[in-house]
């Protein structure tokens, strides 16, 4: 599912999600332990993965590379709970919601 150099992230392939709505929903449905494990595996590879993906034009990413990028979008999403919140939800956000209804295609 992912480029072979990033095989270590295969166990986290459920984080390869098409939309921000999917990524945010999965974040809300995940425990801190699950997000921490994903973060601990993916964050150290972020720089290397970006270098790898930058060898391709964004509009012509091969399937595995595209999956890797979607996985990194999820990493961005869980970075907030892991790095600052210590919880899945945004603190002080209560019942507020905000839907991303348009996002750039990759």
């Amino acid at each position, binding site marked *: 599912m992912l480029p072979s150099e990033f095989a270590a992230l295969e166990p986290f392939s459920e984080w390869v999600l098409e939309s921000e709505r999917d990524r945010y929903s999965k974040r809300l449905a995940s425990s801190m332990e699950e997000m921490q494990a994903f973060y601990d595996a993916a964050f150290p590879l*972020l720089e290397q993965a970006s270098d790898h*993906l930058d060898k391709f034009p*964004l509009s012509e990413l091969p399937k595995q590379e595209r999956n890797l*990028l979607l996985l*990194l979008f999820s990493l961005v999403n869980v970075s907030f709970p892991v790095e600052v919140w210590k919880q899945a939800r945004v603190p*002080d*956000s*209560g019942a507020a919601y905000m839907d*991303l209804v348009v996002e750039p295609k990759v």
Partner: protein
Amino acid sequence: MPHFAKPEAGSWTENYPELGTSPVNYEDSIDPAYYEAEKEAIFKKTWLNVGRVEQVPKVGSYFTKELAVADTSLVIVRGKDKEIRAFHNVCRHRGNKLVWNDYPGEEVKGTCRQFTCKYHAWRYNLDGDLTFVQQEKEFFDLDKADYGLKLVRCEVWEGFVFVNLDQNAQPLKEYLGEFAKGLEGYPFHEMTEVFTYKAEIGSNWKLFIDAFAEFYHAPVLHMKQAVKDEADKLFNVGYEALHYEIHPPHSMISSWGGMSPPKDLTIVKPIERVLRSGLFGPWEAPDIEGLDPLPPGLNPGGHRAWGNDSFEFFPNMTLLIWKPGWYLTYHYWPTAVDKHLFEANLYFVPAKTARERLKQELAAVTFKEYALQDGNTLEATQTMLKSRVVTEFPLCDQELLLRHLHKTVADYVKEHTDAAQ
């Protein structure tokens, strides 16, 4: 001791003596009758930004805009002559909504050669002319020329499509005035990659503008967004803008931008350090024409520490331009005295590489984390204002734009009411 110079009048607020300095009454945000007056006096009279030219790229491209606050729905379409027009979204036969899909209240977009009413198949061309009537001979002296779609004033400034329900309104550019003139030439047309957020907010529309027209709240409400040492520092320093300016009915706040990039990398989150992006956007500007030099309307205070300018185009559009070369808009669409639809659009130069796209993703996700905190506060404010336990609220010098907004609304409502008497 202020960190940045204030005007000779002694404060930003006193620089505009017509605003006064006394506490402000928020009855305008809870009184249903006042809301009805705003609809007539403001939303049916002023220029409203409904989108951008990129949303109607070719002949026949269209989108609808629900304007509950003006009791109508519009369809915006690019005609055969490439002109963009706006029409009331109503069939002239029996008043059915002309353009919609399964749910009449939902906005739609697409491309077509003509509009056909799904009730009795009356057709209109892209210019709004009635071109076909089903069983035309059954009607009585019907002249199709008399039954074109109802046109709405529609003008474009720098790619932003505005409408005005008042046929006698002054031209758009005249209305937008000094601020818009000062922004002309900014490369909005290069920033076509869009993230659009929508939310229903349980507050009066003006209260969300209030929340985004001052940054005094940022070190407090958003304290947990920063790492602890930085949060403590921000809280102790508080917030001061670089510059404020008012050209009625519009206003602006100019702010510093220490996080883009930060002098001290330890104050930002690890993901920001790696991706070199965050709330203030990607730290490096895109390689396009038009950002250096910037149009004269940006950074009006001429500060070296400048980070962004936020323009409040009355009544309901915020245009916020960030130093690193991207911008965002907020729109607040009232649906009731205590409810509105909030829309935020983030506009970037299209990413060419995955790394550029990741920077944008981080900026967009960060925006949402902040905006959720802002949005959640408003419902609490609305309910307590409604209690009328407290009716007068003091506003500080960093809340100048709020004072201006509520006064401007009051002026419009009063003028309209006086004229009606």
